[in-house]
């Protein structure tokens, strides 16, 4: 039996690169098109895109780290349908999100709102950066001054040492 030659990836570097480029380019579109069932989608393309954008900002309560647009959970599907119903009825993005928040609280928003309870959440990166900056600043300031240039006598001694070697360092 003759073995078939398997074309290796190395044999076609350009093809592999093209494939990689296509996959990388397709990744964001794949994430955006999470609703897999066309029956769920609104017939109006613009409305469907709006509903998808809203859904991506809302947390699936069942899986908690996915948006309801990405989740396979039963409840997420119900909520997707409800959002589409509201979008089709002409509600604004804000109204639809407010409708969700009234039922499930701020927790459903993947991007938390800016208020007293979330101040630390929003400012902690800036605080961390400031603390790090202070530490670095003091660290740099405390660095010892560069050594003084050698005096003429030291220069002469160095030359002598280099010439004679370190045979007798105490001399």
């Amino acid at each position, binding site marked *: 039996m003759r073995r078939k030659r398997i074309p290796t990836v190395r044999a076609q570097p350009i093809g592999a690169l093209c494939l990689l480029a296509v996959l990388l380019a397709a990744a964001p579109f794949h994430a955006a098109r999470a609703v897999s069932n066309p029956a769920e989608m609104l017939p109006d393309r613009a409305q469907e895109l709006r509903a998808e954008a809203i859904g991506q900002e809302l947390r699936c*309560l069942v899986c908690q780290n996915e948006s309801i647009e990405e989740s396979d959970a*039963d*409840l997420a599907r119900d*909520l997707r349908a409800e959002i589409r119903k509201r979008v089709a009825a002409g509600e604004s993005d804000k109204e639809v999100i407010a409708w969700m928040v*009234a*039922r*499930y*609280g701020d927790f459903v928003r993947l991007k938390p709102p800016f208020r007293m309870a979330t101040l630390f959440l929003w400012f902690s990166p800036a605080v961390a950066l400031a603390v790090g900056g202070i530490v670095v600043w003091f660290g740099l300031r405390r660095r010892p001054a560069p050594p003084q240039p050698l005096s003429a006598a030291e220069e002469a001694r160095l030359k002598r040492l280099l010439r004679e070697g370190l045979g007798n360092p105490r001399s």
Partner: protein
Amino acid sequence: MAWLGSSLGRRLLLTLPVAAAAAGGAAFLALLERMKHGTYDPHAVPSPLIGKPVPNFTLPAQPPATAGISSADLVAAKRWVLVNFFASWCVPCQIEHPVLTELAAAGLPIWGIAYKDTVDAAKRFLTERGNPYTRLARDETGRVGIDFGVYGVPETFLIDPHGIIRWRWAGALSDDVVRDQLFPLLRGGSGA
């Protein structure tokens, strides 16, 4: 910031990261302790409906009951009522069933809502395990559940005599939860 230059100041500054790490560790340990005792659940979703009137709804009856439940019924009851979303397919519902039975025996009215269940399966569930509910309705699509902010079963709401939601528990009720959370609310509010 002259103190930073002194050697004592510098030594104090050096202990800061250690102190911060120690404080963080202690806080984390306390968190783990609270998770162990069930007083903290990192996955819990606080309900925005606490202190608000029950959402408007009308649901058909779930046999063996013959009359459904509406929000108007809850207001008209003029007493503390526990509203319990359950389903025959839900394992934690079977776990909390004895707790509900005890509460019912203690005289607290419990109104059951069969969530995303079939009439027959829910009925069989109640026949097999006993029926702790004074009234029963069914939310086949889960649409009323969404208005209550339900994201799983079981979920239990305490409604006060004015029809205001006072408390919500997501997950199976346990004796601990009833003793530590539900009873204090009922006692504090001239409850059952």
